[in-house]
């Protein structure tokens, strides 16, 4: 069991309230996943030509300034950086992939959580409430957010094994369920598509599958349609991209899902109770997404 939530604002009117609306949704799903929690927040886009990377280091005393200086001089790029608890946000005019490699090569314990222009991923072991407080989730503004509360079944309870998973620029995926063909698919994606995997987690494979499809020109909506035939197992997915948001359930609908939509937002949760404090929920269209049907908003959908 896991809990997943997502909130996508259709208009800019509520963007200052994203964190305030989203945090109670995440915390309400604690019963479904008390091991660890994670969020991807799409906010504060980097300036034109810049990339934003979120990274984590398990050592609280890790010297981020020294890292920034070393990578900056190695690659001859500018790096601004600021902390958010155990995570760090780095903004640079370098190329995302080169930066990611250089950061992870500097210290093998450092993990890049996300890269892109808008996405920031924060995830940690512990209760969702503690994780939300640690990273100041409630005060975050932005366009959309995706979150996960984890009860682990497939791999270890660690920060790296927590969701969301990001395998492409500005892309994140959260998952409730378990995939049965992830080993073979991981091998295929790493052998034939050159994708590097960071964990043994099944969800990382799903995220990599979707980003690989999108890299070869499929839209978010189409990439998820493809995944219905290639991914085997139980899943409810919520996927975020720079400007898109999508939901997919497996064909036999093993895992729960509720969607709510108003003129201002689309909200997803594993259970309706996570949505009850959203503004206008009383009159929102509330429904259970159909199995094997892709629902998407924004992006190239």
């Amino acid at each position, binding site marked *: 069991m896991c809990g997943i939530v997502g909130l996508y604002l259709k208009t800019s009117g509520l963007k200052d309230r994203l964190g305030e609306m989203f945090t109670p949704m995440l915390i309400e799903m604690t019963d479904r996943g008390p091991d660890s929690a994670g969020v991807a927040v799409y906010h504060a886009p980097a300036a034109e030509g810049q990339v934003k990377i979120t990274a984590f280091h398990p050592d609280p005393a890790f010297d981020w300034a020294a890292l920034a200086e070393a990578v900056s001089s190695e690659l001859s790029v500018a790096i601004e950086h600021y902390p958010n608890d155990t995570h760090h946000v780095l903004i640079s005019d370098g190329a995302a992939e080169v930066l990611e490699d250089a950061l992870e090569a500097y210290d093998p314990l450092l993990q890049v959580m996300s890269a892109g222009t808008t996405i920031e991923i924060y995830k940690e072991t512990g209760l969702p409430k503690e994780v939300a407080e640690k990273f100041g989730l409630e005060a975050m503004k932005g366009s959309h957010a995706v979150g996960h509360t984890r009860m682990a079944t497939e791999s270890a309870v660690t920060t790296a094994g927590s969701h969301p998973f990001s395998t492409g620029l500005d892309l994140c995926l959260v998952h409730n369920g378990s995939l049965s063909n992830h080993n073979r698919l991981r091998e295929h994606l790493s052998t034939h598509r050159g994708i590097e995997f960071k964990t043994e987690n099944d969800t990382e494979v799903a995220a990599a599958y979707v980003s690989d499809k999108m890299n070869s020109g499929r839209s978010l909506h189409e990439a998820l349609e493809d995944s219905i035939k290639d991914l085997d197992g139980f899943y409810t997915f919520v996927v975020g991209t720079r400007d898109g948001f999508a939901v997919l359930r497996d064909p*036999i*609908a093993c895992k*729960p899902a*509720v969607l709510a939509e108003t003129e201002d937002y689309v909200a997803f949760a594993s259970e*309706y*109770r996570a*949505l009850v404090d959203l503004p206008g929920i009383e009159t929102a269209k*509330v*429904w259970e997404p159909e*199995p094997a049907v892709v629902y998407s908003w924004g992006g190239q959908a």
Partner: protein
Amino acid sequence: MSGGQNIEVLDLSQSSLRDVNALLQGDAKPTGAFFKVINPRGAHALACGLDSEIEVEVEGHTGYYCAGMNKLARVVIKGNAGQGVAENMMSGEVRVTGDVSQSAGATAHGGLLVVEGNAAARCGISLKGGDIVVKGNVGHMSMFMAQAGTLVVLGDAGDALGDSLYEAQIYVRGSADNLGADCVEKEMREEHREKLQALLDKADCGEVAVSEFKRYGSARALYHFKPDNVDAY
């Protein structure tokens, strides 16, 4: 609700779920007592295990297993209901004005479940004698292994309807293009028309013509071991 009686309002933003359920389940309630539950906030297991002739009206969407194991009571949910609404109902009536999630009315032995909207997958799974009327559509695998009782669908039925069905009856007005193993269309005789009309009346949609429905039931081909299949064991 009959007129002139007292309404007791139970506010789930003020009282705990456990207290509200204990009150609804407890003794010392006159027959026909009427309770209105407000601010359900998607709570699970609300109004479960009721066992007296009371009426409960829930204002808003509920979580899992609302009105589960219901006996004698009449529960109206004004909103959507989550998984397993009225599961294992013994008698009484549960009515949902919106949609219901998966496994609505699962294993119900008796009583009537009416869904004004759509029901998701596995509606009436393992039904044991209850009646279910869904005014919209039902999802896939509805009535899987249902043993007794009736499902009436005014809309369409999803894939694998009535898979491995026993002696339960299914009536569908819309399409039922994909029947499950051992589920077949059957002749609609007078006794079936009467039974269907009675259920439609109870569900307040008696104006819908029974002639628009088709009846489905078990071909009874899975009941017995076939010597041809001996190699499979």
